[in-house]
């Protein structure tokens, strides 16, 4: 077969496998490629380039005879090159870290080769003479019809078993996964060795598929076991958070109760005083008393009750936990905090971890500004509003400003007035938001207040 003919058929075959790769990688990583709509042209161009280069290398390898090296070393070399290419390609597509891309690439390669091997299982003999038309047609049938069919079955299987989620959990795991990574990375070599060992055992038929299957099963077990462990750990963490939250809740209820008790005590005293005045007919004093009492009650008990009702409207556990934590911090710093949640807030399009990070940064910014400003006017107070409307959710954090610093300086990357964290906080805030299309951030100075807003289109 001529060089070009081979190149073209390679390209065709690779197009199919790259399309599958895209599909499976989306399942695996659980999202679409980064900024797919905006980078449409770039992504298509890169895909074509990737396919062509891969096909070209494959053709050259075939022609030069590298595939006929001893111990299938050429094949292994080619697989590694392909996997490296796939890793770069995935990195370009998803902007995930390189390790994730590498593991995904190896995993994809495993699925692909398994599909091919299963396909070959149905064929009478393994080697095709591409120069003979009949055999070539059979080869094409296997390559372009059967393999994709098996891959489709694979995708459905992956979808059903939720491997993607397990994979993501495994990736998020912090403990060392070096051994698993090395094991997975060695797949082409190990599978080849296994294959030879099986062959030496003189087993009948083609056991390549069995070998890949074995390997895949092991990898599944790794993902599954480690992923599940991670899941359990996460569950424990959320339980702990909710425990802490409940403790904080109980504490504030107790505080409320003790305040009520104190108030009741005062109120009894005042009542008897009023009784005397009423007896003497001093109506003005009685009126004053009633007024004092109502506003006093409001002031003393109102704030606690208010905060608890507002918190009760937040139905996202993580956000509630974050706010309770920040409120605690503010209390320690003697910053008063007002929270306003008019309508129940139960979900948003932002990923919960991202939302918590963003809110944390905004609130920390506000705390930074009012920290240590006790006794100054206006009093150090942070006002947090969460407003869920039908079409969008708004988070607003407002704090008084005490100096006349330039607005953009508070709101620019890398700037810091106190310590180095501040600028970094905002930088990461911006970089989180860059991943979302329907999230808007605003910052304003109005009437001596600094107002930060985060709006999410729902």
């Amino acid at each position: 077969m001529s060089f070009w003919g081979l190149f073209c058929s390679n390209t065709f075959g690779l197009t199919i496998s790259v399309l599958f790769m895209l599909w499976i990688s989306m399942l695996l990583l659980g999202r679409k490629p980064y900024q797919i709509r905006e980078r449409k042209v770039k992504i298509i161009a890169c895909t074509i380039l990737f396919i062509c280069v891969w096909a070209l290398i494959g053709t050259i390898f075939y022609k030069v005879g590298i595939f006929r090296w001893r111990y299938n070393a050429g094949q292994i070399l080619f697989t590694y090159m392909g996997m490296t290419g796939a890793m770069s390609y995935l990195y370009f597509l998803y902007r995930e870290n390189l390790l994730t891309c590498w593991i995904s690439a190896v995993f994809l390669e495993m699925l692909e080769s398994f599909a091919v091997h299963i396909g070959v299982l149905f064929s009478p003999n393994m080697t095709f003479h591409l120069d003979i038309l009949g055999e070539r047609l059979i080869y094409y049938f296997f390559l372009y019809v059967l393999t994709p069919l098996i891959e489709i079955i694979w995708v459905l299987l992956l979808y059903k078993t939720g491997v993607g989620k397990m994979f993501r959990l495994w990736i998020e795991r912090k403990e060392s996964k070096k051994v698993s990574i090395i094991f997975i990375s060695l797949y082409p070599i190990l599978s080849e060795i296994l294959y030879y060992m099986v062959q030496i055992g003189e087993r009948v038929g083609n056991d390549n598929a069995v070998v890949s299957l074995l390997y895949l099963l092991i990898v599944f077990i790794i993902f599954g076991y480690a992923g599940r462990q991670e899941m359990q750990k996460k569950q424990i963490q959320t339980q702990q958070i909710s425990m802490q939250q409940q403790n904080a809740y109980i504490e504030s209820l107790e505080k409320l109760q003790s305040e009520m008790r104190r108030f009741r005590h005062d109120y009894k005293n005042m009542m008897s005083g009023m009784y005397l005045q009423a007896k003497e007919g001093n109506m003005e004093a009685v009126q004053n008393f009633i007024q004092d009492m109502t506003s006093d009650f409001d002031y003393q008990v109102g704030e606690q009750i208010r905060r608890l009702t507002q918190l009760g409207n937040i139905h996202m556990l993580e956000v509630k936990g974050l706010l309770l934590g920040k409120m605690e911090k503010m209390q320690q710093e003697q910053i008063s905090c007002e929270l306003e949640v008019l309508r129940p807030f139960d979900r948003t399009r932002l990923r919960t971890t991202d939302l918590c990070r963003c809110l944390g940064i905004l609130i920390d910014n506000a705390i930074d500004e009012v920290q240590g400003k006790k006794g100054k006017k206006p009093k150090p107070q942070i006002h947090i509003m969460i407003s869920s409307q039908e079409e969008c959710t708004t988070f607003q954090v407002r704090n008084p400003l005490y100096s006349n610093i330039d607005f953009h300086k508070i709101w620019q990357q890398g700037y810091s007035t106190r310590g180095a964290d501040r600028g970094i906080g905002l930088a990461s805030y911006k970089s989180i938001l860059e991943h979302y299309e329907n999230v808007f951030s605003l910052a304003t100075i109005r009437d001596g207040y600094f107002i930060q807003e985060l709006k999410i289109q729902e």
Partner: protein
Amino acid sequence: MLPIYICEDDAMILAAQKKFLEKQIMMEGYDMQIALCSRHPQEIIEAVAADPKRGIYFLDVELKDEPMDGFMLGQQIRKFDARGFLIYVTSFPDLAFETFRYHLEALDYIVKGNSEKMLAGMYKNLAIITERMCKEQGEQKEYFTVKVLDIVRHVPVDEIMFFETSVRTHRIELHAKNDCIDFIGSMQELQEQFREHFLRVHRSYLVNVNKIQELDLKHREILMDNGEKCLFSKNMKGELLSRI
């Protein structure tokens, strides 16, 4: 003439409010008139829809036995009267006022527990409204109006430093003296809109030439009045120098 609308489900309070407002308008000679006092929000909406113009609204937050509360009523009114004055009257002092102010641009809220205080609050608001109307008449500022999802912001054009393109497509960042707003827009359209004082000095920047403090020709940087920096491209140097 500003029409005044009152929506209040308690007939006694409604009557007291009406009487007080009528008296105040007479005494102070305000250019206002009570258009409608009602216990039903629907009537208010119909009246506003029939004759939409800038008005003053005193709205009860909690409306018993009605399909909507004060917040929803405010939203309906805003559809017809974007610049009117909304004042909320509530029996609970812990109203989520920031939310009302944020979404409805409500002017104030008054607690009705004590009738003297309530009327004093109404009086204060009438004074504030009059003052605001006077101020607005004298003002001839040009504003840039930008919509971000459900809210609209007006930024004085002479406070805008520059517009910058964002990493995300069709997204523009507005940098002004007191604002930083991220919105959906197109540089081309902004360029057309602000032909007079703004110059597209770089692929990513549309700069207000009146706000330039100095040029760093070596690094091709522009320092704005507020201390922010932006870049300019080589072939814009000539035009930039001639415009400032």
